């Protein structure tokens, strides 16, 4: 990989990321499937970095999945987003940060639309006043939560207990980074490093001791495709996209996949299970899958947080092989316990994909 050339491109796409006083909005997908990641983001921001992050109890979905499945009109999505901006304004904040990539892309699309068509912004303001009585000031700074972790990656690295190094070989772990499509494919200048060579996850991986794998289908979509996953009859599209990526990356023997979009880790995790059931294929070593992590999980893991506090027990592809490689301790007996330490039973083992669980 010609790193020098990439660095020149990354230098072209630098974005300003606020340093403190964030108004945080949550992700529908993240809350359902990886709630521990959002909890970890706030823990890192508050406990490790001592930053102010505010969440308004009245904020809701931005309606982004409804918009990209085309049941929610653009006019409605813009007004839903305007309401989120109003909550930020009312709370005295101006730095808006989102957990969701679909939301981030939608916010960027809307702000761009308003910049090109001021009369649309004015119309949306009227809709919002009429429907809710609220008004808003546009954010001074818009970031995705992965931008924020990227900004503070050196500070996080400095207090981390572990590095992305294989304890058995002493070599850097080999990492596939997967960027959510709506992070920068629509507006390259809104993402760190642009669309072709986004640097937001690479910066974390390299600063925390790992090496990034360059592979042919690196920029291919995970396959969510909104209606292509949400309607059962269309899921062939979704799994085919993920399969294309797995087959492209597998020869490079990645130790894990790192993602910044809420949907991508879920699909890259679950479709490995589905492919193993459908075709008997597994993409890791010895019948294991390739663990898929969120950037919040990665940061928390290296900071020494308990993997079960991070929510790693709700991955279908087990993460224990990765924890073992780094030398991170964990108590497998506690993996499926309640907060009070009571048993919740345990998930069934898949037919082919190896699944660590206590006996």
């Amino acid at each position, binding site marked *: 990989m010609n790193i020098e050339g990439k660095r020149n491109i990354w230098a072209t796409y630098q974005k300003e990321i606020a340093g403190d006083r964030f108004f945080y909005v949550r992700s529908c997908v993240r809350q359902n499937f990886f709630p521990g990641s959002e909890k970890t983001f706030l823990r890192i921001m508050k406990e490790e970095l001592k930053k102010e992050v505010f969440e308004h109890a009245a904020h809701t979905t931005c309606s982004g999945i409804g918009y990209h499945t085309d*049941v929610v009109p653009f006019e409605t999505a813009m007004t839903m987003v305007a309401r989120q901006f109003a909550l930020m304004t009312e709370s005295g904040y101006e730095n808006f940060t989102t957990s969701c990539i679909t939301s981030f892309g939608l916010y960027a699309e809307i702000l761009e639309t308003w910049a090109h068509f001021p009369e649309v912004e004015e119309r949306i303001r009227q809709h919002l006043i009429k429907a809710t009585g609220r008004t808003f000031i546009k954010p001074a700074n818009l970031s995705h939560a992965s931008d924020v972790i990227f900004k503070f990656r050196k500070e996080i690295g400095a207090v981390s207990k572990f590095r992305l190094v294989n304890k058995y070989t002493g070599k850097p772990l080999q990492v596939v980074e997967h960027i959510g499509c709506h992070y920068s494919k629509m507006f390259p200048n809104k993402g760190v490093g642009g669309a072709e060579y986004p640097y937001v996850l690479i910066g974390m991986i390299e600063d925390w001791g790992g090496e990034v794998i360059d592979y042919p289908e690196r920029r291919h979509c995970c396959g969510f495709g909104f209606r292509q996953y949400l309607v059962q009859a269309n899921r062939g599209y979704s799994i085919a996209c993920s399969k294309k990526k797995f087959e492209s990356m597998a020869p490079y023997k990645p130790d894990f996949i790192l993602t910044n979009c809420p949907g991508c880790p879920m699909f890259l995790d679950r479709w490995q299970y589905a492919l193993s059931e459908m075709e008997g294929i597994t993409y890791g070593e010895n019948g294991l899958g390739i663990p898929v992590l969120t950037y919040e999980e990665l940061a928390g893991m290296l900071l020494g947080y308990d993997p079960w506090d991070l929510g790693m027990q709700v991955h279908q592809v087990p993460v224990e092989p990765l924890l073992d490689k780094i030398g991170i301790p964990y108590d497998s007996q506690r993996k499926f316990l309640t907060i009070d330490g009571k048993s919740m039973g345990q998930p069934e083992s898949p037919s082919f994909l190896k699944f660590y669980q206590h006996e």
Partner: protein
Amino acid sequence: MGKLYEKLAEDVRFVEGLKACLNCGTCTAICPAAEFYNYQPRKIVDILQNRDDSQIEELLKSDTIWYCGECMSCVTRCPRGNAPGLLITVLRSLSQELGYFTESEKGRQQLAIKRTVGEWILKYGYCLYPSQILPEMHPEQGPIWEWEHEHITAVMERLGANYMKTGPGILRKIPQEDLDEIQRIFDETGATERFRKIEEFSAAKAQEMKLGLNETLDNDYIRHIYTSNTKDHTKES
């Protein structure tokens, strides 16, 4: 220039998405949908810039406009600054407004999406909600989701959520006054009207297809549109 083209051109996304296409096919080369379906975004952009209403009407009634995954990979690569993925959103909006969406198998799926994601936004304040993601409708979610779903309250508590409780936090209960605001936004900005049209045109189609449709998800029409592919959409018919 016909009436359908004029209608499309009223949408700011159309103005943003269509400059002048040189038919290079870069969008088709990068498109995940073009790899899977019988689909070429280049052809769609070409039809639109030709401004031929009869071809546009055919498009609005076809499966073709529903194959796109709206990943927007095409936007990055177009050498002329077009956005085929954005044009798809405009075509889908008009197809629903005119009721043309029920003329195609993939278009008819809009009712299933409206009755799930669309209604969850109004009911819960989220596009997705764990109690509604049923393992039997999502076998690909695997045994881990079956286990989570069975123990959802305890799992969410373990992972730090504020599930179904008041105040901020993960999957908190959205206060009724905020859900009321969403409803008023939907009423004011056209979403309620779009929902009404999806329901109305779908009811007529269900009758035509002689499939039962009630107000729930448990009926023959919804089951049919949610699960069926009566032709191979990946090949030219």
